């Protein structure tokens, strides 16, 4: 696959202009906006300077020797090989320097670890490959996906300044409040990281980890998943928007209203085209990382969704055949109810996990309708949100 020069040029221009916005942290940590991140910033500078000083002294001596004690200037070698006093001194001095570094560090660690008197809690769940946020006190719950269009990643469109660092729905927090995060994951280990907050905490399946931050300056802060979690690891950014309390309250109210609207939308009937259009957006943000935007999957790893396509992973094929989705090494489109079951509950033992908990009835219905009527799949099948709701009620 040769690199496309024409698409590369705008990339470079954009990156040059984009960096000016980031110029202040090109050589150091990002500007800190929480007290902890500020302490980390200062701690790093302190240690860096100490190291630099030691480096200059030690290598100053070494390069002096290299220059002055060359054979080519006729320096004849001394034969000493011990100096106990000197050896003791250069063992002890570093010890005291280290103690000097450890003292402020210990205090920072203890402060980082004190998760007390928090004002609100957000449960963060890492999933392959997006984040889910649950506002525990407000009953609001949504997922946050990468918002960068696939075309930009594939170099078919010019990259926008926040390329790969933008999401559809950011985490929103009020300024000046101590926010507690409860982190976990549903599949593999992820790590939630906002550099400007000084928070990086692994989200581990089966565990709940804690972290906290308090932002005083309103703004949008960006980070990325920091633990290798598979194919989409580079594509699950984290964006936090800090708003003043009133704006936050308004946002929360709006969020609740949207939840109610979604509930109502689920009772409506939709046409095939409406479902397909909605389904395409959802598919591209949720499913295309593995199954690809053209539905062809990745050979041997992620099965294609197109009827008649071949797939070589015997283990996965077996599980698909059990559900009526494969025959003779080829993918076939199985029955609608099984399709719904796979999307809702996943296929245990594979990377396909149940999406039922994170998607609304309408989203599930739309994405299945889209899959059954795209890339040469022409079943004409439709799935209405009501049907999804019925299954949800009976099976949970």
């Amino acid at each position, binding site marked *: 696959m040769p690199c496309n020069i024409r698409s590369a040029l705008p990339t470079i221009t954009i990156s040059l202009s984009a960096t000016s916005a980031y110029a202040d*942290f090109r050589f150091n940590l990002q500007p800190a906006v929480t007290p902890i991140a500020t302490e980390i910033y200062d701690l790093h500078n302190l240690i860096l300077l100490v190291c630099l000083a030691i480096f200059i002294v030690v290598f100053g001596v070494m390069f002096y020797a290299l220059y002055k004690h060359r054979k080519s200037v006729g320096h004849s070698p001394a034969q000493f090989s011990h100096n106990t006093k000197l050896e003791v001194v250069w063992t002890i001095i570093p010890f005291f320097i280290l103690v000097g570094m450890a003292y402020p560090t210990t205090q920072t660690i203890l402060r980082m670890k004190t998760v007390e008197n928090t004002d609100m809690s957000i449960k963060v769940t890492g999933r392959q490959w997006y984040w889910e946020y649950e506002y525990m006190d407000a009953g609001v719950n949504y997922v946050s996906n990468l918002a960068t269009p696939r075309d930009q990643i594939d170099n078919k469109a010019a990259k926008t300044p926040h390329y790969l660092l933008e999401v559809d729905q950011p985490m929103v927090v009020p300024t000046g409040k101590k926010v507690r995060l409860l982190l976990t994951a549903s599949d593999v280990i992820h790590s939630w990281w906002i550099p400007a907050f000084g928070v990086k905490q692994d989200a581990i399946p089966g565990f709940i980890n804690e972290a906290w931050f308090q932002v005083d300056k309103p703004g949008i802060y960006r980070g990325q998943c920091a633990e290798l979690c598979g194919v989409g690891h580079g594509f699950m950014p984290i964006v936090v928007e800090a708003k003043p309390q009133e704006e936050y309250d308004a946002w929360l109210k709006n969020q609740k209203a949207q939840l109610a609207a979604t509930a109502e939308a689920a009772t409506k009937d939709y046409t095939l085209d409406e479902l397909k259009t909605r389904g395409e957006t959802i598919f591209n943000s949720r499913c295309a990382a593995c199954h690809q935007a053209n539905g062809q999957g990745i050979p041997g790893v992620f099965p294609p969704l197109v009827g008649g396509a071949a797939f070589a992973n015997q283990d996965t094929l077996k599980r698909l055949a059990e559900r009526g989705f494969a025959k003779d090494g080829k993918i076939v489109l199985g029955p609608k109810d099984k399709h719904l079951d796979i999307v809702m509950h996943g296929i245990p033992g594979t990377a396909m996990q149940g999406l039922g908990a994170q998607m609304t009835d309408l989203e599930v219905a739309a994405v299945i309708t889209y899959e059954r009527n795209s890339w040469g799949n022409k079943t004409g099948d439709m799935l209405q949100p009501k049907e999804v709701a019925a299954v949800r009620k009976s099976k949970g």
Partner: protein
Amino acid sequence: MATTTLHDAHHDAHPTGVMRWLTSTNHKDIGTLYLWFSFIMFLFAGGLAMLIRAELFQPGLQFFQPNLFNQFTTMHGLIMIFGAIMPAFVGFANWQIPMMIGAPDMAFPRLNNWSFWLLPAAASLLLMSFLMPGGAAAGGWTMYPPLFIQGGMSYDMTIFAIHIMGLSSIIGSINIITTILNMRTPGMTMMKMPIFVWTWLITAFLLLSAMPVLASAVTMLLTDRHFGTYFFNAAGGGDPVMFQHIFWFFGHPEVYIMILPAFGILSSIIPTFSRKPLFGYDSMVYATAAIALLSFLVWAHHMFTVGMPAASQLFFMYATMLIAIPTGVKVFNWTATMWRGSITFETPMLFAIAVVCLFTIGGFSGLVLAIVPVDIQLQDTYYVVAHFHYVLFSGAAMSIMAGVYYWLPKWTGHMYDERLGKIHFWLTTIAFNVTFFPMHFIGLAGMPRRIPDYALQFAEFNMLQSIGSFVLGASQLLFLYTVIKCIRGGATAGDRPWEGADSLEWTLTSPPPYHSFQTAPAFK
């Protein structure tokens, strides 16, 4: 008369051709095999690095999809560590230890042959795994579950390959330990052994302690994948963090397994070209032992973000910081060795000086990473990538190059081409820094590691790094050429081509006889 004919018949007595290499139990042949094997693996894993850097040349996905990219990073790590760096040091051990302690060969020559030939078997498993459906393992060289449990067939092959390489390391270490302990020439007490022999003795001890831990960690992954156990699978009540503890309990000593023999090589080269005895031999030995002991107490510094209590974080931070002391002692000793010497700058010495400087930078970034709050920011970023390449490329790999230039005249009987050696040195050192120094900056600025595509503010540095890495990769071909040229001919190297060299191997002819020391040499 009869005797003379008998003696002539004996020359070139060992088998030749393929059978010589397959069946050889001679420490020099096996050393050569180890070194060539590791060099081939170095070029292969280096090639993977070139592909990684090609994809990262610009933002966006140009050449490889993320799945393939992750296979490259995973295999680059595994092959460089287990295929290139470790076998290269075992190659040095095979060549040098018997010659340095005045022994005819290794203690168990037959075992020595086995421990080498296990390696190509393991390497072919790893290479073949690229051909499996879904490609090679893509879960990172650290193999963290549950991600590593999700993969296909190639993941099992990777696990088996690690088993085999572990067995090879164990047999090799036992052989090295018994050789060093039991076959020293009379008069060479422990505290008179060359430092290179000391560092390998301690390394072999570390290997024996760490390898069963690694073997069991990957075995548990295997049973979790196929036999329904739940050691690490949270879905069945297992503990994914447990794997990280076990893995890094192996992993941190592994870091020293790859750096202690490098210290040994530096401690051989620096006195030679300073024409002065090594400064502080005793403290060098104690520092090596101290590093080895501490290496078992610091493993969790790789896991500061998994959510451990403050007390654990503090313990592992303090222990990690302590390692700076014995490491510092070594750097000070090398400096004092050069002080008031009579220094010349042949290629081995140039490499050795560069290693001391660059390794120290890697040591300082290690100290920065030991500071828990700073590590929280830098964990899993390019800062870490910069750190371990300063330690493993400029620490371990460049020491290997220094050692090759240093002992090549002894091994082949020819001098290498000094001019080519120096060009190789400058290209490597400059390109290395262009490649890896900016990684500190993008790591600080927040670029995670192991991603195939990145945000736009990292673009210029990434392009610069890619250009540096291509030069770095290409200059290793010059190294290959220089070595081959030296093997095939060149100025005759005397028994002691370096004026300041004084360990036992320099009393042998160049190249040395088939059995190094027929009778135990006199040792002052």
